[in-house]
C-alpha cells in the first residue's frame, strides 16, 4: 500500500510541476531573472504548495495515528552550518545555469529531451561526487 501511494504521490507531484510549467527551464529562469524581466510565477507555485503542506503536515505531525506508517522520519538537525549555506549556494548556481532543479529535471525526462537526459545523468554523478567533498 505504502509503495502504491508513493507512486501516486510522485505522479501527482509531476502533474503539478507540469501544470505550473516548472518542467520548462526557461520559465524557471524567468523567476531568477530578478534584475531584468521578472516572472514571479515560481513564487506562486511555492506559495500554493505551502498553503496546503503547512497546515496538513502540522496536523499529521501532531497526530501520528492518522499516518499510515505510524512513524515519522523528520529532520532533527537545527544547526545553521557552513555545509547548509555553501551547499545551497552551489545548488542555486547550477539551477541558475540551466533552470532545472531535481524534481522538474526528473519529471522532464518524460519529454525525451536530450538536454534533460544529460542534466539528470550529471546530477546523479554530482550526488555521487558530493561524498568526496568535505566542507
Amino acid at each position, binding site marked *: 500500500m505504502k509503495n*502504491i501511494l*508513493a507512486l501516486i504521490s*510522485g*505522479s*501527482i*507531484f*509531476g*502533474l*503539478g*510541476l507540469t*501544470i*505550473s510549467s516548472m*518542467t*520548462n*527551464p*526557461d520559465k524557471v529562469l524567468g523567476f531568477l*531573472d*530578478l534584475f*531584468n524581466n*521578472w516572472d514571479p510565477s515560481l513564487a*506562486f*507555485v*511555492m*506559495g*500554493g*504548495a*505551502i498553503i*496546503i*503542506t*503547512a497546515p*496538513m503536515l*502540522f496536523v*499529521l505531525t501532531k497526530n501520528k495515528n492518522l*499516518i499510515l*506508517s505510524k512513524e*515519522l522520519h523528520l*529532520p532533527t538537525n*537545527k544547526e*545553521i552550518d557552513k*555545509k*547548509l*549555506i555553501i551547499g*545551497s549556494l552551489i545548488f542555486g*548556481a*547550477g*539551477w541558475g*545555469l*540551466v533552470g532545472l*532543479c531535481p*524534481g522538474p529535471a526528473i519529471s*522532464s*525526462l518524460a*519529454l525525451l*529531451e536530450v*538536454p534533460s537526459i*544529460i542534466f539528470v545523468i550529471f546530477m*546523479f554523478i*554530482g*550526488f555521487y561526487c*558530493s561524498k568526496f567533498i568535505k566542507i
Partner: protein
Amino acid sequence: MKIDFVNFTPIPALIGGIVIGLAVVLFFYSTGRLAGVSGIANNALTKNTNRATNLLFLIGLISGPIFYQVFISSDIPYIINNNTLILIIGGLLVGIGTQIGMGCTSGHGVCGISRFSVRSIIATISFIFSGVIVVYLMNILGLN
C-alpha cells in the same frame, strides 16, 4: 527590475503549486517522510532501505507530464540552453549542492518552509540568491 507580465501565469502556477502540496501531503501520509526530491533520488541509488518506495515515487514523477499530455494538453513548453558544457556543469552543481546542503526546492523550499524550519528558510534564500546572481551574470555575458 520590471515584472514580465507577458509570461507571468499566476493561476496555473497557484493550481500547480496546490497539486504539488497535495502530493507532498500524500507522500507524508503514506511514508512518514518528507518529499524532498534530491534526497529521494540519491537514496534510491545509494540506500537499500525504502528503495522500492523511492524508485516508485521517481517513476511517478516521470509519469506526471505523460498524464498531463493525456488528460489536459499535449502542449508542454520546454525551452532550454542547449550548450552541453553548461548542462554538464549545471547538473554536477545541482547534484553536489543539494547533497551538501541536504535539500532542494522541494525539500527545503516546500517541505522545510512549511514546517517553519530556519535551516530551510536560510537554504532557500541561499539558492535563490545564487541562482539570481548566475542568471544576471549569464545575461551580461550573453550566454542565455
